[in-house]
């Protein structure tokens, strides 16, 4: 590490702070850190707190109470309103779309990543480049041709209309994460299997799959979050209420509830609840998933 010695040398000659002053600097630094920490925590927590308490307020009393004061008498009426307004259908749609898209993405991406990681031919390198290019395609930019395609395939206003493009656009990042995992598997392991007469499918199933299991959790969680929260595909590729997924349903609720802010906030809380449960169950995997593709 050449940086190391160079840095050390420069630091030695440039540090001239008297020892007695150091604690003052430390105290100031700590106070600054504590203040900034508190400020950011408030910025994150206050809106979330506001959403939750507002969802528990009565519509009538809402406008007259102080925004940050907890409700005098908490009510779950708003939640009843939301649940009665087709929430079950939206939740089910979101679940179907997410599970189908993630399963599809992971299945096709794992096979692709295996081919890319094991192959050294020019062909497999171009294949990888194609997906790297895909990382740069903004969803928004291609939504019009996708819309035309979905109409022509007679899939408009079906859940499959969301599943297919959502899965397709999750493929590049998934391939990238899986490839970076598979590249770390020693060639010798695959060679040994090949010597024993195992074909590509057997190597994929019995060797690659178990080895990338941690990465699989990562991509499932990451893609799951993306698809679950996705808005553009549902907005453009579906139309009827019965096909609405949760993010789209939130905008429908707002249209339906109008100025009924407590009910809208109850819908926000309910739509977020499944993700919060997932977060509590799989926090580590979720965090690993969000960083894995970018900071290995």
């Amino acid at each position, binding site marked *: *590490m050449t*940086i*190391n010695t160079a*840095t*050390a040398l420069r*630091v030695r000659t440039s*540090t001239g*702070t008297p020892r007695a002053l150091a604690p003052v*600097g430390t105290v100031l630094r700590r106070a600054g850190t504590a203040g900034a*920490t508190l400020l*950011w*925590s408030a910025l*994150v*927590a206050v*809106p979330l707190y506001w959403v939750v308490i507002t969802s528990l307020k009565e519509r009538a009393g*809402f*406008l007259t109470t102080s*925004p*940050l004061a907890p409700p005098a008498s908490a009510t779950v009426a708003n939640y009843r309103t939301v649940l009665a307004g087709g929430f079950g259908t939206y939740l089910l749609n979101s679940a179907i779309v997410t599970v189908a898209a993630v399963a599809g993405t992971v*299945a096709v991406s794992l*096979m*692709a990543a*295996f*081919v890319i990681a*094991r*192959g*050294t*031919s020019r062909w497999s390198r171009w*294949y*990888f480049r194609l*997906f790297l290019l*895909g990382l*740069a*395609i*903004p969803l*928004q930019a*291609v939504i*019009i041709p996708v819309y*035309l*395609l979905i109409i022509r395939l007679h899939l408009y206003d079906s859940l499959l209309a969301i599943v*297919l493009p959502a*899965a397709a656009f999750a*493929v590049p990042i998934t391939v990238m994460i899986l490839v970076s995992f598979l590249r*770390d598997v020693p060639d010798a392991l*695959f060679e040994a299997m090949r010597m024993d007469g195992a*074909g590509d499918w057997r190597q994929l199933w019995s060797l690659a799959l178990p080895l990338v299991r941690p990465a699989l959790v990562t991509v499932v969680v990451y893609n799951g979050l993306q698809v679950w929260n996705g*808005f553009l595909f549902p907005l453009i590729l579906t139309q009827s209420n019965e096909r609405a997924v*949760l*993010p789209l349903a*939130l*905008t429908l609720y707002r249209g339906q509830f109008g100025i009924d*802010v407590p009910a809208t*906030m109850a819908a*926000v809380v309910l*739509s*977020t609840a499944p*993700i919060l449960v997932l977060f509590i169950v799989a*926090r580590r995997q979720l965090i690993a998933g969000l960083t894995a593709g970018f*900071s*290995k």
Partner: protein
Amino acid sequence: MTVVRTRTPGAVAMAAPALLLFGLFGIVPLLGVLVLSLADWDGLGTPGWAGLANWSTVLSDAGTWDALWLTLRVMVVSWLVQTPIALALGLFQAAPGRIRSLLAVLWFLPLLLSAVAIGLAWQALLDPTFGIGATPGLHWLARPLLGDPDLALYTVIFVIAWQFIPFHALLYQAGLRQIPVTLYEAAAIDGAGPRDRFWRITLPQLRYTIVTSTTLMLVGSLTYFDLIFVLSGGTGGPGTATRVLPLAMYITGFQAHDMGRASAIATILVLAGLALSLATTKWSGFTRMSSQQEGA
């Protein structure tokens, strides 16, 4: 040891599904948007030929240039706002400690919410009559932050930062944890203060993380749609104060039913995305083909 592998029937069958899925919904639309930009289509009937008419309309429309300019402003200001805060939070989160990890969990929460949920929550929270500004002591916030053409864009940038800073803080946290402790130990022995350690060790060691985070922020800036769509009630308003390119495309295509012109706008979006990616992927490490664990 390099293993030269020829194309086996198994490998071709494994590569095909991802290629088919991503090709159909990713690559074909990418070319399709260019073709459609030369078409005359209202979104319902059959596309007809329009030649360069859409392009001359779009390029001579001041609205297009406004949208491009807005997009660039959002891009630059977002980077300036998000990067220092994300880096600071990453530094705080990366250090060990119970309180730190608890706060990190709290700070992570905005990342779980859908853009629609965040948009609805902030839209209500920032309402001048019943939002946060109605709290005693916070009356200075009781102004039309989203309704004032001069303030709306910055309000939107603020909410975008609220949503995405946790993700970038996470990237920085992961990057920081990979810096060898020995570097800091050596510096400490040589008497380097916190400031020296930050500028001479931390920042240089984070260069790949900074480039990665920057790339994602810049390319991501081209795709801010959901949040602005919800915050502005689907209009990119007030007026056109927050009508960034993706929103201009949506409004032209799906509200004004001019898919040809919308495709021309989308093509600009594609070109901007590709240019940004090509310019930055070189340094981001996305294209490093081999395992990054070797020789680290």
